[in-house]
């Protein structure tokens, strides 16, 4: 049986059409679109400012309230060391000497040494 020549030519034409393809430019445009869509979809991570070492240390001890307490205690310690005891005692309202029974803040150990001849 002889095939229809028109049908055969059409089949060859349709077969040739399968090799038709897009230009390189279209490939590039499509890939650029893909890149743009991917870039837009990428989540934006907020940039954190770099933390300084002293900030980390401050947070570790409890922040500014703690630091101010420590500072006040330090200032008091220096004052106690620098000034004469009576001045500091004045600041404290005379309670330091009152509590210890005079200027001597240590107990009288001499009495313990000689009591009954034993230490």
């Amino acid at each position, binding site marked *: 049986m002889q095939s*229809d*020549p*028109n*049908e*055969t*030519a*059409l089949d*060859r*034409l*349709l077969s*040739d*059409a*399968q090799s*038709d*393809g*897009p*230009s390189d430019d*279209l*490939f590039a*445009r*499509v*890939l650029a*679109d*893909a*890149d743009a*869509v*991917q870039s837009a*979809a*990428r989540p934006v991570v907020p940039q954190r400012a770099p933390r300084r070492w002293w900030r980390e240390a401050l947070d570790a001890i409890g922040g500014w309230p703690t630091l101010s307490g420590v500072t006040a205690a330090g200032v008091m310690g220096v004052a106690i060391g620098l000034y004469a005891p009576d001045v500091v005692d004045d600041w404290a309202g005379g309670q330091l000497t009152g509590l210890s029974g005079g200027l001597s803040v240590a107990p009288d150990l001499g009495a313990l040494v000689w009591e009954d001849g034993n230490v």
Partner: protein
Amino acid sequence: MEPQDATLDTLDDGALMVLFANGDPMAARVLTARLLPPAYRHAARVLGDKAEAEDVAQDAMLRLWKAADGWKADGAAKVSTWLHRVVANLSIDRLRRSGRAVGLDETDEPSDTSPGAEQKLTQSARMAALDAALARLPERQRQAVVLRHIEGFSNPEIAEMLGIGVEAVESLTARGKRALSAALAGQKEALGYAE
């Protein structure tokens, strides 16, 4: 470790869509290499205009990229079916807006004189003749013939792409091919198919 290019080639389109959504740029390359040529051919044969076909193919691919984020890789929707449905709709929109047909006399004049230019001209003339013959067919018939006889999709796939029944596809492709054959009758020599 990211899968290599060769590994991506073995993945199906749905899996590549998920990789694309996760930011893998190589997935876009593999999908483009697979899907763009048939999408372009589909539009080119239906529209009969290369520049318009490129616009439609690019637009359809852009919609595909944007759809990747919500794509389900469970095989519920086939990527190529989805894409050709978009191409079919975009092409029909353009045809309805313009209402023009392409004839053999609208083929660009050749300016290429390099070796192989004659062969390119023959191919160009053949595609122009095919486009002109396809332009005489009703829209649905044209789409069905292109998808069946050029892109090689199955009738159920075409039915899903065009939103019609399988029997309707069979009828459209059979009638379309007969009409094409009649339209091209007598052009065998002109097309360079003379033995």
